[in-house]
């Protein structure tokens, strides 16, 4: 069965999502264990594949229906997407454990089974985008993930959630249409939809890079994915979406969704167009993405400082963080890419923990105002500790995960002679430190007369995933293996050192 792990990792959550409306009708109690079990399997499968790829050094291939690519559709797991798969499945598993109680509170009874089903389909969608080796298949799973995301967001208790979901739907559909256009242009030029096949055509004849349709294709991929990943200045949909979504949705979507699109961009750059396109074919695109991501890195945290709502604050901070990942691509050297790739995990861990805390706040107080955090340290020490660790990771305090990302990005920037990136990173750390410190001071050193709004610790089902994510921030910051993986992944992408 190990040979079928690629497809099973996607199909088990998908199947669980399909069966859930049927089984949930019989017995509602089965819904949560089913979700946890399915995502547990996906986590196991993706980690198994990642270990496999890391030890053998060879990518895993899988083709559907027995048709060789590009005639049929196939999957391909290498180090890069193995890491992203593990991130999605892990975040999905922890979210599914975490959501037991918040879902009872925030999702109406009659819709909860369907909510779980939609959540599982969303996980399957993200996993499918990541693992596929066929660009049109990527689009299909992108749409599964998108449609479910829209609704996961719109399920928030307030009416603003509906409008946030709708805005995301409209903007996201424009993005998806642009991606579809990009796929069309590529298909017209190469006659193929298999990523590896397209790449080999480009590599065999680099004069293709000068063709107008190839360039247009890349431009539309870039803009479409930039919308989906909320890259500045196309992030307009994101703050409201994160703010008004129910806590389980915002936890899962914040820790995975934008990064999946960022991964897709990595894949388009390295697995479809090829490295040479960025260096020789259309170097201008590098500058544009560089400027966009630098702007995101500085402005995201800067706007976050002013926010009074914790979820909105975190959303703006995500705008900045996605900039780090995109910065990794355009630096085009091993150090920079290592920083970008490692940030998939580091940011998922940090942002996941922070949204666990935001969810705990909503769970206890019913709203996510920053001011309600006052005095939480005394009443909910575990949650506050997670907030502290994850906050430090966001700032990039040494020995936390965030530090390593920034360190490698800075090293890559110097190597690529983009010296100005270093002050950009510093400025962003400073802005991040300001809002993190503001929050932490409220949590731990609130004035004595303030009565804490969070009166007690959250249940264990919510505490364990939060602690696991918080611990991940430390583990990734203290152990070399995650960096080693990312470095091998970066080397495998074929950039010069």
């Amino acid at each position, binding site marked *: 069965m190990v040979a079928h792990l690629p497809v099973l990792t996607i199909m088990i959550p998908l199947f669980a999502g399909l069966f859930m409306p049927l089984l949930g009708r019989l017995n509602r109690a089965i819904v949560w264990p089913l979700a946890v079990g399915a995502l547990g399997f996906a986590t196991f499968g993706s980690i198994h594949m990642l270990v496999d790829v890391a030890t053998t050094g060879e990518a895993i291939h899988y083709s559907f229906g027995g048709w060789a690519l590009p005639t049929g559709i196939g999957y391909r797991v290498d180090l890069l997407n193995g890491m992203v798969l593990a991130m999605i499945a892990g975040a999905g598993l922890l979210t599914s454990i975490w959501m037991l109680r918040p879902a009872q509170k925030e999702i109406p009874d009659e819709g909860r089974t369907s909510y779980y089903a939609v959540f599982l389909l969303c996980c399957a969608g993200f996993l499918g985008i990541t693992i596929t080796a066929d660009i049109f298949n990527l689009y*299909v799973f992108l749409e599964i993930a998108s449609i479910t995301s829209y609704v996961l967001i719109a399920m928030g208790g307030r*009416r603003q959630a509906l409008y946030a979901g709708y805005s995301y*739907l*409209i903007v996201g559909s*424009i993005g998806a249409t642009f991606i579809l256009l990009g796929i069309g242009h590529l298909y017209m030029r190469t006659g193929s939809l298999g990523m590896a096949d397209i790449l080999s055509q480009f590599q065999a004849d680099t004069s293709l890079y000068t063709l107008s349709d190839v360039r247009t294709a890349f431009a539309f991929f870039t803009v479409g994915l930039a919308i989906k990943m909320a890259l500045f200045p196309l992030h307009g949909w994101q703050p409201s979406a994160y703010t008004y979504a129910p806590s389980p949705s915002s936890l899962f979507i914040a820790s995975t969704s934008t990064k999946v699109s960022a991964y897709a961009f990595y894949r388009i750059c390295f697995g479809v167009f090829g490295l040479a396109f960025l260096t020789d074919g259309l170097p201008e695109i590098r500058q544009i993405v560089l400027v966009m991501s630098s702007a995101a890195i500085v402005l995201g945290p800067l706007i976050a400082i002013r926010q009074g709502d914790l979820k909105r604050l975190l959303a703006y901070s995500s705008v900045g963080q996605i900039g780090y990942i995109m910065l990794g691509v355009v630096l085009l050297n091993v150090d920079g890419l290592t920083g970008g790739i490692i940030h998939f995990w580091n940011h998922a861990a940090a942002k996941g923990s922070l949204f666990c805390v935001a969810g705990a706040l909503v769970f206890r107080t019913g709203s996510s105002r920053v001011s309600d955090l006052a005095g939480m340290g005394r009443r909910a020490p575990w949650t506050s500790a997670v907030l502290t660790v994850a906050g430090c990771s966001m700032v990039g305090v040494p020995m936390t995960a965030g530090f390593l990302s920034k360190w490698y990005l800075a090293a890559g920037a110097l190597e690529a002679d983009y010296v100005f990136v270093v002050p950009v990173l510093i400025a962003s750390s400073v802005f991040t430190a300001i809002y993190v410190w503001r929050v932490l001071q409220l949590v731990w050193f609130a004035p004595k007369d303030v009565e804490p709004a969070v009166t007690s610790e959250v249940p264990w089902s919510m505490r364990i995933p939060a602690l696991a994510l918080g611990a991940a921030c430390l583990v990734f910051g203290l152990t070399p293996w995650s960096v080693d993986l990312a470095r091998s992944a970066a080397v495998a992408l074929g950039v010069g050192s």
Partner: protein
Amino acid sequence: MLDVLSHLWSHYHYVFYILLMLIGLYAVLAKGNLVKKVIGLNVLQTAVFLFYISIGRKAGGTAPVLWEGKPETVPYENPLPHVLMLTAIVVGVSITAVALALIIRIKRGYGTIEEGEILALDEADARGES
């Protein structure tokens, strides 16, 4: 000038798909009514279908159904874009359905489906809270 015109003429399918696409995109971006945006989205998506189908055309080709004879002798159209667009049509109608459901809920929640009024209500809410 003549070059440009002749280019546009020879690629007129593409010119039309771009035109349709821009009409749709304009509606999505500029119209404040939520249903109108969905209509725009539909036009936008169908325009892309036109692009795909145009890619697979063969001059003098026939439908890709093996009625006419052996594929070696008959110029059958490229079937792949057709397949892709069948999928895209389904995706399109799915998005339309979800969008409409959201609009119905928005109407129920806000009492309006005009973007400006919704934002004004949100703003009033935000002021009420602070």
